[in-house]
């Protein structure tokens, strides 16, 4: 690399006498970049949610058993308790006194939520009513049709078919997410489910539906749930560095909690 040119080189070289400086700068930037990536990764795993920390002590005793039992989990879940109550009554599956409650904050237009859906179905099939599933709406603004989809599920809920519409929305996400006339598609889904379509259309914009979604979003805010899906198992948020890890973490923690409670 070096060539001796005594006549000219140094004069034109802005770094005269400082040949190590660029390497030091590069080294510092490399270290800073690695440090930053590690920090961001950690904060992403912990959800960056300050509200969770306040509740950690409060629930630590409660969660110790499950945490120990779930020692195979890729990452220890965070503890979250309390928060706003959300829509009442919530949409649930399973026994009210089930040993394990899984609460999902979901957005029907979010691909990871759709990916989580079949996994949750498998867990429901395995544990039946012993797994209580609660679904909360958290339609993100970045998803153009997520709000309408949440309304569709809630409007179907007013006719007793929330879960049927919920499943259909996740399963047919690729069909309706492109829009633009999602309400017509949702009305078709309502027809397929045997709902009163005219009532369904009216209910989409009803204050009951709006209030339920708003209440769920308030609960999400109060728990610091910002991304979707955010999953809580017995009040503890499932962390993970990838969606697969979150799913695996959820599965391990549900299994562990079932074993703890039935022992």
């Amino acid at each position: 690399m070096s060539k001796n040119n005594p006549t000219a080189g140094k004069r034109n070289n802005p770094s005269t006498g400082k040949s190590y400086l660029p390497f030091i700068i590069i080294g510092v930037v490399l270290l800073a970049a690695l440090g930053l990536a590690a920090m961001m990764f950690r904060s992403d795993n912990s959800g960056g949610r300050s509200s969770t920390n306040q509740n950690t002590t409060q629930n630590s005793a409660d969660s110790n058993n499950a945490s120990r039992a779930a020692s195979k989990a890729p990452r220890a879940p965070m503890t979250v308790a309390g928060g706003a109550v959300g829509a009442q009554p919530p949409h649930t599956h399973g026994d009210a006194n089930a040993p394990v409650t899984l609460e999902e904050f979901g957005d029907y237009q979010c691909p990871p939520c759709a990916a989580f859906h079949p996994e949750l179905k498998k867990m429901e099939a395995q544990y039946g009513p012993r797994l209580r599933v609660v679904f909360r709406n958290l339609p993100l603004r970045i998803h153009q049709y997520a709000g309408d989809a949440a309304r569709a599920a809630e409007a179907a809920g007013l006719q007793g078919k929330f879960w049927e519409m919920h499943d259909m929305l996740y399963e047919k996400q690729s069909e309706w997410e492109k829009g633009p006339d999602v309400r017509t598609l949702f009305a078709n889904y309502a027809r397929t489910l045997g709902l009163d379509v005219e009532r369904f259309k009216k209910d989409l914009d009803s204050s009951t539906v709006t209030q339920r979604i708003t209440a769920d979003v308030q609960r999400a805010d109060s728990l610091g749930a910002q991304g979707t899906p955010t999953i809580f198992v017995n009040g503890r948020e499932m962390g993970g560095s990838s969606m697969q890890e979150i799913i695996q973490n959820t599965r391990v923690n549900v299994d562990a909690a079932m074993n703890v409670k039935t022992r």
Partner: protein
Amino acid sequence: MEPDDSVASVEPRASGRRAAWFDALAAAVALVGLLDAIYLTVEHLAGRTVRCTVVAGCDKVLQSDYSSVGGIPLAALGALAYFAVFSLAILSAFGYTRLRVLLTILVALMFAASLWLLYLQAFVIRAFCQYCLLSAAVTTLLLILVVAGRLFRFK
């Protein structure tokens, strides 16, 4: 390793300095690209919905089949490329002027890759990710700076 003066020696003094400033500017711009790519890598690995605030579709883009090559997130390759550009530009600014050829080739390749990724977002995935668009803008700016730097050198 010492600064390579063989190229610098044939440059007129003022234009050589100006070219060095362009290199320094390119290094600063590459840092922006590096930050962006690090963020995207972390979000890709986290797999959750990225909170895009300007355009929708970050999650769709970041979880598409095109977001990784052989299991390696494309964003991580981008971070490596931006770090390489930063290093080459800094070294070049400090007198290792022969590296400017490598820098130009690397930035040109990154620009070509950005065009391909823009095409994928627009016509295949049909969704845009604002951080990917920022990366494309940074690469374009880098190309302009590197080309302008070379033009000044030969002026």
